[in-house]
């Protein structure tokens, strides 16, 4: 028996979350602002009008500031895999390694090559080649995100692999099913669109500041035109892929869906909660009311419809997932206790397999391997002790999800109004809208962070869904060392963020330059 300090697991998780969240401050703006500047340069290429070149160069400078501050911040996550999550790192083997290696190659060669042409090549290369370089920088950044998100999606929905007990690794047997898994595709699109929304919001918000100050009016109006149209398109796309996310979560991670909606008791024809205040005394095994106050979305049975494409489908609640349930199509989903027993069988079979192998008894090893394979999809349940271990933090996920959706709706409204008033040529006089757009920039960052909270806290306790919980994945290192590096990262990233904000604000104060 190993004594594992619970605070080690929590600090390791906290350190990873801190790093990932800081990294995610920089990435979405790169993805979104990249598209904005590339669209503007495309307009310049088509019209030849210098004001579009001037606008492109201004947003490109801010893109450069953000890119320089954010570059390589994600590498720290890879350091942590090797140090703090070594069991996990070994266990996932080439499945996680291959996408990350491809990401590294793409990020380095594509972005590094074309970003220098983008910044240095204005007077050195043709307009067409420069425009192509700008789009290739954006494409490179987006493809980098693809590989990271493929790896993340695999953790949420492991597929295309087979566990090899001789190497203790999950080995890739189908690269395409990992790359093209519906969860990966949807996650990639939803995440990239969230970056687009932030980029659009940043463009509209900063441009609104110029209008409030009555500076650079023509530039600001042009930028708002691009930003608001792009924002509306990105918002519609994010709603569409959000629907896809809900569907996949319902199929692959029903506990996450139940927690997102605060659904303890399953229902046929379940509604979606618009807003609610959770009862802090509610537990899965008591009869307390779930909500102190609750308001449903006024479209009945929407959760069943979105989750299962059937308005009358049964949506399991937290209690059902613990106790086992039967889906509308007759599929029986086993209880926590059954899956725990199955997981324990799998782990014991692994142990016996190793012993039989060491003893040179191949036929006995083969018998244990059959048991291991038959129960492998519940392997991680063998590490959980009680039903509560299976339930993520309900208030955190519930509120994060609902605030994220509410903010998304607010942004769509801001983009639509900005577009409308720009079209009516009345935008400059709408001070309330300009201030709302400006003050919404930090809310854009908040929304993208909340999205990750839903995705990652909502899948606890798993590092790999159903296969490996966090307490089995973490390395046996001292909690003190994790705490030390947590605060080192906090200091480093906070310094970077302050530097980014200061340099950005200086550039914005300066405004677009004439070249």
């Amino acid at each position, binding site marked *: 028996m190993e004594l*594992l300090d619970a605070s080690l697991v929590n600090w390791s998780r906290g350190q990873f979350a801190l790093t990932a969240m800081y990294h995610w401050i920089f990435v979405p703006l790169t993805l979104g602002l990249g598209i904005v500047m590339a669209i503007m340069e495309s307009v310049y290429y088509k019209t030849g009008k210098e004001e579009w070149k001037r606008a492109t160069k201004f947003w490109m400078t801010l893109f450069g500031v953000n890119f320089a*501050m954010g570059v390589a911040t994600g590498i720290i996550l890879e350091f942590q895999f090797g140090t703090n999550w070594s*069991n996990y790192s070994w266990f996932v083997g080439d499945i996680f390694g291959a996408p990350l290696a491809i990401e590294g190659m793409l990020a380095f060669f594509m972005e590094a090559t074309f970003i220098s042409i983008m910044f240095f090549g204005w007077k050195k290369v043709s307009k067409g080649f420069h425009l192509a370089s700008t789009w290739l920088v954006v494409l490179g950044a987006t493809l980098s995100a693809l590989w990271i998100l493929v790896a993340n999606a695999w953790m949420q929905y492991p597929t295309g692999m087979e566990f090899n007990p001789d*190497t203790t690794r999950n080995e890739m047997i189908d690269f395409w099913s990992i790359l093209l898994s519906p969860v990966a595709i949807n996650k990639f699109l939803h995440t990239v669109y969230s970056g687009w929304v932030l980029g659009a919001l940043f463009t509209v918000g900063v441009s609104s500041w110029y209008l409030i100050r009555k500076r650079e009016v023509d530039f600001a109006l042009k930028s708002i035109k691009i930003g608001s149209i792009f924002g509306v398109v990105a918002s519609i796309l994010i709603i569409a892929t959000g629907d896809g996310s809900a569907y996949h979560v319902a199929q692959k991670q029903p506990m996450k869906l139940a927690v997102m909606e605060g659904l303890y008791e399953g229902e046929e024809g379940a509604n979606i909660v618009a807003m609610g205040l959770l009862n802090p005394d509610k537990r899965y095994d008591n009869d307390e009311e779930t909500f102190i106050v609750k308001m449903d979305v006024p479209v009945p049975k929407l959760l069943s419809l979105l989750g299962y494409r059937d308005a009358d489908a049964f949506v399991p609640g937290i209690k059902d997932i613990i106790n086992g349930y039967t889906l509308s199509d007759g599929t029986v989903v086993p209880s926590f206790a059954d899956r725990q027993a199955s997981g*324990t069988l799998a782990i014991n079979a692994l142990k016996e397999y190793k012993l039989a192998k060491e003893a040179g008894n191949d036929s006995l090893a083969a018998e244990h391997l059959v048991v291991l394979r038959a129960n492998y999809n519940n392997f991680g349940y063998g590490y959980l002790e009680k039903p509560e271990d299976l339930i993520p933090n309900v208030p955190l996920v519930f509120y994060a999800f609902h605030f994220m959706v509410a903010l998304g709706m607010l942004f769509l409204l801001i983009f639509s109004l900005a577009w409308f008033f720009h079209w009516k040529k009345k935008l400059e006089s709408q001070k309330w809208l300009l201030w709302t757009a400006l003050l919404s920039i930090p809310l854009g960052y908040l929304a993208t962070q909340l999205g990750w909270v839903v995705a990652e806290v909502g899948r606890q306790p798993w590092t790999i869904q159903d296969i490996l919980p966090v307490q089995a994945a973490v390395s046996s290192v001292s909690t003190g060392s994790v705490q030390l590096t947590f605060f080192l990262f906090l200091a480093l990233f906070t310094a970077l963020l302050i530097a980014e904000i200061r340099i950005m604000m200086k550039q914005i104060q300066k405004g677009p330059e004439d070249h």
Partner: protein
Amino acid sequence: MFKKLYLFYKEGFSNMTVGKTLWMIALIKLFIMFGILKVFFFPNQLKTNYDNDRDRSEHVIKQLIDRSDKEIVNQN
């Protein structure tokens, strides 16, 4: 060809304004990450402590088996 490339970068870097500050910050950041954090705080546990993949595999499998029979304690 190489001369043109060299001049392209040389001119590009020398004409930078805010870019010089950004490069300086990026280089300091990379030094802190790779020269300090990676070296002193983030050794690869399995590569550092075990000589070959077989030993690494044995270690991980032992951890996976032991932790199923674990007791999580809170030392705080």
